[in-house]
């Protein structure tokens, strides 16, 4: 439950969803696509790495040091199970709204 609350933070969820489909991304790409500040992004990535949901590695691209973030298998499984649970809850609410409108 505590771990769910750590990953359901919107910023971290958006990171996980992006990496789920992209598999891996560099720091500048994540910053640009998701609209994070540099410090904010670093903090969220560090937290996700602590939780074992992503792996961070650093290497040189065109002689410039670059940080790569890769989703782990555990990260993919956790995101998928959370989204499936969320889907069940939200579709109950949507169905209820639709019925009340009728």
């Amino acid at each position: 439950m505590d771990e769910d609350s750590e990953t359901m933070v919107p910023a971290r969820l958006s990171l996980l969803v992006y990496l789920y489909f992209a598999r891996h991304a560099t720091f500048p790409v994540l910053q640009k696509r998701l609209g994070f500040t540099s410090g904010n992004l670093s903090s969220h990535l560090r937290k996700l790495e602590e939780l074992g949901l992503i792996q961070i590695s650093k290497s040189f691209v065109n002689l410039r040091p670059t940080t790569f973030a890769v989703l782990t298998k555990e990260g993919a499984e956790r995101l998928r199970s959370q989204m499936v649970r969320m889907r069940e809850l939200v579709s109950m609410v949507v169905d209820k709204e639709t019925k009340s409108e009728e």
Partner: protein
Amino acid sequence: MSSDGNQSDNDMVKKARRLLLLADLIDNYPQVVSRRVAGLVYILIGGGLSFATLILMSLQDLLGPGDPFLTNLGFVMLGLVASLIIGFRLIVPLTRSYPVQPSASEGGKVVLALWVILGTAIVLSSIVIFQMGLAVLFPPTLQFMMGCGFTINYALGTRAGSFNFYSREHIYFAIAVFLSIIPMLVVPAAAYVVMIVVDMGGIYVIGIHMLITAEGLLVESEGQGYG
């Protein structure tokens, strides 16, 4: 205030539907990955068999035709084993990051068992056919077993509910393989050419089609009635 409230509720419902769609996309994505990987493995198998055919035919030119049974067995085993080793070492690990549902992986085990049995049947029937001196029956027999294999693949897939994965390419290929038996029996001299064109061509077509249509599984998610 009431209309503002309704507007806000409508916005929330729209956001909720978008969230449902995202959840569907995430839920279906492992199947997309599996389909892409399967397409790549098919192309690799086609490539491996083509390469093995080239090597063996070149060797036959240099060393003479040799024993037809051993030549055919060598062609099939070399190509398949090399392709599968490369495929499973390099490509299949891509699916580990996106684990499929347990029922789908159980279905995969059944299909693997099916092909192990068919492979064994192919080898045993080859031994019998060549021992009896009926080499002309080898290509049609092989085609019949391949056709059965792909038909059962398709049937098991539809039954298991992983229909999106075992889609119609497999049954179309099975039909093409069964139909190719006719020219093989009518013109036995062209049997191997027919087999190479139909089987190799079919494997490439299936692989390429699975690759380029993999994301179609995500498009189907959008029509799930939430949007």
